[in-house]
């Protein structure tokens, strides 16, 4: 156990959340629809942060939990102390990517986010065919949903030409100027197994 308050303090400063306000009632975990998929359910995550143990912080940055949270807001809605756990998840995800600590088992989820942001970076709007192509290229799930695309097309739900923003430079500048942008670093920020 290594008590080093820096990274927890940084979290609290960045999010404005005092993790000690949690009194471990467990309502967040009871309501969390992804809790049974997670390695550390939300209430345990809160308790790990409360210990101020740097090793546990590192464990969370490597966890599957942070990428499984879908930000549905059930936890904060039901929290008697209104602790914004989804915001803590956002903070931990960003830090995990920044420090190249993404859990390899969360690779597909992160690949989807990256393919999504890539698509916006180049066209300003999401292009669904580009998104899926980018996702498949990153994950090698080449045959997934191959039957879905023709059906979407025949139902008029899959335009073949991307929607484009005219001010492409404006969008690129936003991507360039937002610091610590994980997209600007090479994609290999996955933790080596």
């Amino acid at each position, binding site marked *: 156990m290594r008590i080093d308050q820096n990274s927890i303090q940084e979290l609290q400063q960045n999010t404005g959340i005092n993790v000690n306000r949690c009194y471990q009632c467990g309502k967040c975990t009871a309501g969390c629809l992804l809790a049974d998929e997670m390695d550390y359910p939300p209430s345990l995550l809160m308790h790990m942060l409360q210990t101020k143990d740097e090793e546990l912080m590192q464990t969370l940055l490597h966890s599957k939990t942070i990428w499984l949270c879908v*930000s*549905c807001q059930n936890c904060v809605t039901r929290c008697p102390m209104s602790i914004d756990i989804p915001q803590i998840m956002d903070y931990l995800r960003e830090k995990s990517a920044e420090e190249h600590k993404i859990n390899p088992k969360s690779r597909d989820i992160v690949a989807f986010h*990256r393919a999504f942001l890539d698509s916006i970076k180049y066209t*300003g709007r999401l292009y669904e065919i580009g998104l899926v192509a980018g996702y498949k290229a990153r994950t090698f799930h080449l045959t997934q949903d191959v039957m879905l695309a023709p059906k979407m097309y025949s139902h*008029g739900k899959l335009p073949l030409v991307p929607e484009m*923003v005219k001010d492409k430079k404006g969008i690129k500048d936003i*991507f360039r100027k937002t610091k610590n942008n994980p997209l600007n670093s090479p994609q290999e920020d996955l933790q080596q197994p």
Partner: protein
Amino acid sequence: MQDTQNSPFGGKGVIGFYPGCSLKGSSSDYSESVLAVAKAFDLELTEITDWNCCGATAAHNMNKELALSLSARILALAEKQGMEEVVVPCAACYNRLTVVQHELNKDAELKQRVVDIIEMPMSGNLQILNVMQMIDKYVAPRLEEKAITPFAHKVACYYGCLLVRPHDILKFDRLEDPQSMDILMKKSGAQPLDWAFKTECCGAGFSVSRTDVVAKLSGNIVKDAADRGAEAIIVACPMCQSNLDMRRPQINEYLRENINIPVLYITQAIGLAVGLSAKEVGLKKLFVPAQFA
């Protein structure tokens, strides 16, 4: 012609429309039905020129500043184009735009940083309306008289997560048992059912990366609606619709049942109630077919 004195929107500035990416692609039926209903009630919506993606889940999961800036650019464009109100039918976009405007308004330093990034001024005074708020304000006052072919079916109104949460910021409806959609559907002639999954998550953005999770979460929603005798599930979010509708094969596989309740956007159901055709509200685009017209 509208009497500008009595018209709820007479004399006001331009009412903006932010379709978002889904409505231009996989949820084009939502866009068609929103615009058709607006037209039927003489409501003119003006699309924000050169809008971009709000960043959705991907942006706020990966980079907070990027997420704030992408949404802020949209808000700034709407202001620049003289809009006071913007209708945002996609629940996820509505959530992002409202939360971002709120976060920037409460932190002047952060707002300045974002304004520098997008290189556009923004006051942060935009009224952002979700589809229910649009209907409530501009359609509901005349809905009952115009519902010439009432949507007389048992419906399960499914709100999802992002329309009502976080309540402190959105200040929209009740958190666990919201009513706004139920009330509007009742006015369209439907019988809204009491059920348990109104605001449970459908699996959201995991549709591609964790389809198994979506099958389970959406499966539980569809199952409860079926058990209560719903003839249709009514939604107001493209992500909810595509998960409950396009992922039905995976849902039925998970449930080991064959449930074929269609999933309609609220504007499709209301459109049918006020006499619009199935084609006008994009009903043919549903994967699980709906036989209401």
